[in-house]
């Protein structure tokens, strides 16, 4: 039997958005996915040593994960996202990922695909180019793209359905508005989620919503916003804000888009308790818990008073 090509996927950044798609797509092409472990102290330390100290924490973690994956796989998947069309741009960090990684690590083989709709690099064609390196069967590539997109859609829908069920419950509900790569990361957002679960609180996530719908809601909030990921999370905040008891904004230090968008949200959202949590590598657990505890106390007191 031929040895399977191993593709490394760092568990950071866009992993949380596209993993289901990537996994199905590359496995159907006959590759094996190697996933880096949940973020831990060692990965962060390695990432910090590799990166510029002013760079944002998720970017440091990303480099740490790539450092873990080197020598464990044949290729490492590093997408570069520039934009998805007009007014659907993303943070500049994603524009530089490939070049930063290839300059820092000279010994790894990068599987890069480039998404830049305004310059004609559509997602499908870029992925096709990548997949053609791994599998020469054109029909197989198209078929697996179609299948895995469908699977991704079904998976996302199941998450949304779960969230809709939560909305019906009578317990205290809190919405977390954040980038998926911050809140789902075990090191950055893990503490917050664990604590909220321990306090018996229903958690809603801002990314679990129909994306096109969220973008429509974001228009009500701001007409000039052009970051796609911020649009999605702020749109769902607008959508859910009347159904929940409080909102937690989680961002990392120093996140570019969040520094502006979250500040605007604090000024525009009225009549709902909001807390802003900024995570960095030295966030103390006790301090975080105290803040969350008093926030929850405040929400419950507010609820009792009607």
């Amino acid at each position: 039997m031929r040895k399977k090509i191993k593709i490394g996927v760092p568990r950071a950044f866009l992993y949380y958005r596209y993993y289901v798609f990537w996994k199905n797509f590359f496995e159907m092409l006959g590759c094996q996915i190697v996933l880096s472990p949940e973020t831990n102290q060692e990965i962060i330390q390695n990432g910090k040593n590799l990166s510029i100290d002013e760079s944002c924490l998720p970017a440091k973690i990303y480099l740490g994960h790539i450092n873990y994956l080197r020598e464990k796989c044949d290729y490492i998947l590093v997408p570069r996202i520039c934009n998805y069309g007009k007014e659907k741009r993303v943070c500049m960090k994603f524009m530089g990922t490939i070049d930063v990684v290839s300059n820092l690590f000279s010994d790894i083989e990068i599987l890069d695909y480039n998404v830049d709709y305004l310059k004609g690099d559509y997602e499908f064609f870029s992925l096709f180019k990548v997949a053609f390196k791994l599998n020469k069967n054109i029909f197989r590539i198209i078929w697996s793209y179609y299948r895995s997109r469908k699977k991704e859609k079904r998976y996302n829908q199941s998450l949304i359905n779960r969230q809709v069920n939560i909305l019906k419950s009578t317990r205290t509900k809190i919405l977390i508005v954040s980038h998926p790569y911050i809140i789902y990361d075990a090191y950055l957002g893990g503490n917050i989620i664990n604590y909220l679960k321990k306090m018996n609180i229903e958690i809603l996530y801002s990314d679990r919503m129909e994306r096109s719908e969220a973008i429509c809601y974001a228009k009500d909030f701001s007409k000039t916003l052009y970051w796609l990921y911020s649009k999605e999370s702020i749109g769902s905040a607008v959508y859910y804000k009347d159904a929940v008891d409080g909102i937690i904004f989680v961002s990392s230090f120093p996140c570019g888009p969040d520094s502006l968008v979250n500040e605007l949200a604090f000024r525009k959202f009225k009549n709902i308790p909001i807390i802003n949590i900024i995570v960095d590598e030295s966030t103390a657990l006790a301090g975080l818990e105290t803040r969350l505890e008093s926030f929850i106390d405040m929400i419950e007191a507010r609820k009792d008073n009607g």
Partner: protein
Amino acid sequence: MDRVITFPHLGNYYIVFNYFLSNVTKKKVICPPPTTKRTIALGSKYSPDFVCVPFKYNLGNYIEALEKGANVLIQGGGGCRYGYYAELEEEILRNLGYEFEFYNLIKDNHLSLKKGYNFCKKMNKKTNIFKCLYYLINALFMIIFMDKIERYIRKNMGFEIKKGSFEELEKEYLSSFKCSNGLLKIIHNYFKYKKKFKSIKINKPDTCLKVTIIGELYSLIDANTSYNTERKLIKMGIEVTRLTDLTYLLITKRFLIRKMIKKNKKYIKYNLGADASVNIALARKSAISGCDGIIHLKSFGCTPEISAMSILPKISEDYNIPIMYLSFDAEDNEVGIDTRIEAFYDMIVRRKDN
């Protein structure tokens, strides 16, 4: 109520903005007071925590201009985070209780000419598209001429025989732009002062120190942000080269960027956003052309420049050229930066002697 227009500062270019706006709109235009410690203190007091420094300066400029009586604010900078400044600035200023009209000329992260024209039309109903275009071309010529003279100053000011003669003439030259009207007069003015600048006696040795300045646009253009780093270097007797100015941003950038990425295939494959890829190309170019050092300026937290900073050390290693990184925030002290610049200067002098 009479409309009084204002705009945030950007280096010396306030002369051009002032010229264009006052001619097209025929309304009173006031420039915000020169940026001082108070401006940045006001700006950072009301800004979000980790927003980049240009936001704080812009906000400070607006507040000081509002205090002087302005009531129409314009924001027209685009790119990266800059394109989203306008909305938050408006919200913050409204929460502070000021009354004003706010015009955001940005659409999808770029300056929109249509929005600009609509703004002019709203301010002055008598204006038409030809008038706007005429003054726009004049303004562009002004920018190009200003940048040309500045490039000459950067190259030669460090070697002037009579100290201060360049700065004196520069002041005179800038103020002459304020009162020049019409395209012919602007061109005439440029050639007149070009001759004057050329006639200043300099003593420039062939083996002078050469330093290239690269980095983020706002810190480079607005000397206040970088505590006059550039001028300090020039006064030490260094020939300073810098590509990034408004001519570059408005005209040459779109032609350069693809060529530069192609030439530097070894380091960059794609555009890194903003000026990052051009900076890498420039760093390599100046390293090849025998520069003695590179200084990289940026404001704290600038995302594209951080990407560039991960690649620049490789160039520094490959071509054996020193690079110093300076990052500016609202609360820097000038003495610390002076010390670093002096140390850098000593280092490149010693390297040259060996």
